[in-house]
């Protein structure tokens, strides 16, 4: 269990790293948002999964997954608003 959760954590950290590298290295705002939202949501997903695996009770696991879902909704809608603003500005 410990090993599984550690591996998942590392995997999550890798995706966060990838997202951050994308944020720094990509040339324009649209591709930056793309890198950030996609990779970070996946990274957060893995870390949440790692915590779910080690969590003691079902309620805690349920709350963690709920947090991930809310973060997904928030980041994807913010991504949408940012992208639309960028496109409208030309």
């Amino acid at each position: 269990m410990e090993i599984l959760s550690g591996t998942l954590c590392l995997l999550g950290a890798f995706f966060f790293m990838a997202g951050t590298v994308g944020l720094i290295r990509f040339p324009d705002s649209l591709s930056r948002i793309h890198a950030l939202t996609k990779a970070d949501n996946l990274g957060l997903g893995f870390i949440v999964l790692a915590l779910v695996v080690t969590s003691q009770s079902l309620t805690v696991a349920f709350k963690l997954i709920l947090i991930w879902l809310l973060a997904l909704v928030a980041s994807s809608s913010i991504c949408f608003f940012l992208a639309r603003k960028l496109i409208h500005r030309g």
Partner: protein
Amino acid sequence: MNLTLLFDVFLIAALLLVSWRLLGASDLFQATVLFISFGLFLSLAWIRLQAPDIALAEAAVGAGLAGVLLLGTFKGLEPEEDREGENLSSEACRLDPISPCPGRAHLLLAFTFVGSMTALLLLAVLDLPAEGDGLTLLVFQSLDRSGVEHPVTAVLLNFRFYDTWLELGVLVAAALSILCVRNRLDLRELRPSKVPDVMLRRLVMGLTPIMILVVVYLLWLGDHAPGGAFQAGVVLAAMLILLWFSGHASITSLSRILWLFSLIAGFAMMLLAAVITASWPEMRPLEFAEEWSGAIILAIEVAATLSIGVVLSSLAILSLGAVED
């Protein structure tokens, strides 16, 4: 050297770097965004120092609400300067163009002052008693008589009741003074500067029940775990601002009386508790009977949540809103 210490060093370096940049960056917009990340780093530090109550409040207030207020004010100041074609360096966008820029003597004086202040602080910290247990023991000894199980809530709403009371008074005063400064009687005609779009409306519509759930949950949690009136109030404020911003009914559609009533609800409830305990026989002012204290604290918390939510959202709406012509 272990991992926790490494994390501490990184976190502190990030905090200091961000605050240095936000005070020094030539671009004001950049400074505003850095200020938001400063709040987030601070809330990480609260988690590290085992203060989850404060981390919750800081993440919502320091990073969220302060960001909204600063960006809103920045937007309000910006367009005129853009139109006049001035460049936006830190010297050009100052508010008072007549007074001279700080010279070398001014900077030296400021630096000496800051140096001596920091040295004094250092002396004060070194002077702290090494074995100070503070008031922890005292709080834990009287915790079972306070009516709640979470020590921070017990301190806020029972042991140091008057602090929280006066704080709610400060909130009311702040809201009313902003009304004075903005030359208004209430919030009713204030509209968001942009026409809200369908996507945002639907999204906020979907999120509102969840936010109400979070408010109630945080309020209930304060009884035995990190959470309580402050955190719940801040979430309520965020909800009211989002509702207003996406064009739904929010506090701007309340009548003046109702708005004022919810503004002072927390303060009034605490005043009521104070009056009742003061006139009760065999009881000192602000001392709650054990069997009633849980109920009294809950009533006060509900009212305080309402007041904090309404005041904070009014602050944001007053700074973001414009009057429709």
